[in-house]
């Protein structure tokens, strides 16, 4: 047993949790849900679900191309979502926000359109701690164009290895694409510092902010990124919507990604001209209700305060790091101190495979992720095949962390690990 340890958060957790009905669920065996998988997908507050419901029940129609009153309402609602996203991340201009179906599509858009300018001899730099969605699109772009893929290594502490940065980012580098917060290690990378090095050689800086935007205030006007992506469902918003933010002049210089309705200017059978951003990158009927829901989600987070959410995340992560390190045979993958570290903790438990850890925890109502978390290379880097990951959000309580630590003790006794 862990006993009561000191914990202090600026959030009123009871009132936050009241907005998320799912957190009151009881699972099989009468165990209350302990949801520690928010880095995978966050839960949704009533405010978001109600916004979706109101949109579908009162304002539903297609956007832009529908000329009637509901079409105008749906368009206003969809574009309102864009305004909210732009304000939330400090974009200079609402036209810098492109809606995609998820962060993976946004990264594929980036790799495809930036890839159009790559040629043999050019280099793209990523890192060993990337999610597969920030590895594979660049591998494909390099295969298509003959460009070379290079990557930052990871130190034993789970930090980005900057020792060979001068050899990595050179005049041949055209794109640097890095995760801001690692989904497997939790590491927060020094984006602004790397962006300066990328810009010094004329390269474009792409940032995967899928785990960053949910956790702390983001201001793209000072970050140094040229393109940045995140996804709706990790920021208490709906699935089916992702965001690509780009500096407007860069977006305006990029070719289309997917072709179709609404991304064109004039279509002739002999060739077409394309709409300016963001429409150029939004072919077909977009995720309309999802944009409304995403707007409601970001309003919800702003109402609570991203500063407070970041402070809570920091506090609960520190509390969990401390608790997990009391479990015998447990090894944390990534930084063990809550410094420059996000709220996802992957770990290995001696003698018990992560699937078995997660199944046993699941029978006690505790939801964690087991596997390689779409980040196989970083597991390989640490000689691990897979790991168990617990991740936290604005509704996570210290009691839930205690339940995890106790649950891991039970796992060890169940598998007779000493």
């Amino acid at each position, binding site marked *: 047993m862990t006993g009561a340890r000191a914990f202090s958060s600026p959030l009123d957790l009871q009132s936050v949790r009241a907005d998320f009905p799912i957190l009151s669920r009881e699972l*099989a*065996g009468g165990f209350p849900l302990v949801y520690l998988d928010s880095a995978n997908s966050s839960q949704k507050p009533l405010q978001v679900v109600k916004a979706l419901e109101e949109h579908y029940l009162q304002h539903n129609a297609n956007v832009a191309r529908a000329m009637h009153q509901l079409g105008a309402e749906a368009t206003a609602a969809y574009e309102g979502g864009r305004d909210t996203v732009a304000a939330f991340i400090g974009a200079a201009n609402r036209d810098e926000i492109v809606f995609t179906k998820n962060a993976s599509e946004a990264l594929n858009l980036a790799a495809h359109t930036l890839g159009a300018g790559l040629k043999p001899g050019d280099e793209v730099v990523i890192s060993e701690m990337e999610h597969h969605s920030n590895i594979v699109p660049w591998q494909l772009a390099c295969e298509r164009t003959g460009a070379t893929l290079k990557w930052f290594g990871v130190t034993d502490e789970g930090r980005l290895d900057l020792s060979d940065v001068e050899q990595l980012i050179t005049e041949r580098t055209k794109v640097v694409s890095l995760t801001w917060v690692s989904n497997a290690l939790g590491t927060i990378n020094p984006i602004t510092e790397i962006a300066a090095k990328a810009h010094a050689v004329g390269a474009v800086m792409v940032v995967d902010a899928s785990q960053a935007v949910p956790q702390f205030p983001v201001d793209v006007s000072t970050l140094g990124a040229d393109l940045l992506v995140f996804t709706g469902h990790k920021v208490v918003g709906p699935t089916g919507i992702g965001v690509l933010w780009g500096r407007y002049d860069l977006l305006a210089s990029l070719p289309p990604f997917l072709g179709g309705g609404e991304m064109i200017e004039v279509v002739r059978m002999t060739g077409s001209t394309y709409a300016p951003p963001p429409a150029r990158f939004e072919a077909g009927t977009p995720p309309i209700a999802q944009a409304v829901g995403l707007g409601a989600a970001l309003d919800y987070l702003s109402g609570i305060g991203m500063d407070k959410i970041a402070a809570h995340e920091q506090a609960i992560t520190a509390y969990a790091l401390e608790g997990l390190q009391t479990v015998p045979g447990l090894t944390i993958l990534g930084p063990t101190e809550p410094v420059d570290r996000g709220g996802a903790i992957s770990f290995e438990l001696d003698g018990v*495979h*992560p*699937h*078995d850890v997660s*199944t*046993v925890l*699941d*029978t006690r109502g505790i939801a964690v992720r*087991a*596997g*390689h978390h779409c980040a*196989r290379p970083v*597991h390989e880097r640490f000689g691990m*095949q*897979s790991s168990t990951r617990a991740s936290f959000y604005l509704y996570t309580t210290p009691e839930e962390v205690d339940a995890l630590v106790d649950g891991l003790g039970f796992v060890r006794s*169940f*598998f007779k690990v000493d």
Partner: protein
Amino acid sequence: MQLDSLYQEIILDHYRSPHHAGLAEPYDVEVHHVNPSCGDEVTLRVELDGETVAGVTHQSVGCSISQAATSVMSDLVIGKPVSEGMATYEKFLELMQGRGNVEPDEEVLEDGVAFAGVAQFPARVKCALLGWSAWRDATAQALAKSEGVSNA
């Protein structure tokens, strides 16, 4: 959800000391199967003697369910005609997909009946089938090879 029904003692025994583990010579075909969603991997070798499974050896990384299932599978097919092994697979698959409503046949499945509880954990069914899919693939390739059909 009953943990003990999932992790029966037989399963844990096979997990701790899997049968036919460690890749051996000679063999006809070697395959490598992975479970991309979780990262479990198995390398498996099959040796046929005509229509009979002369040998199966394997080396794997994965959870208790996948390792134990591969161990039990090896016991079930070695020394049997390929057709009987395939029929056993069908029985095992039926059990896995039965959501707990299929009564396992101990005559056919032997230690495999211990996996009946896995059927109630949908996320774990693919773990129990990984070794089987590797064996079926390797065996099909070995048969094709012995019939002189190119597999390239």
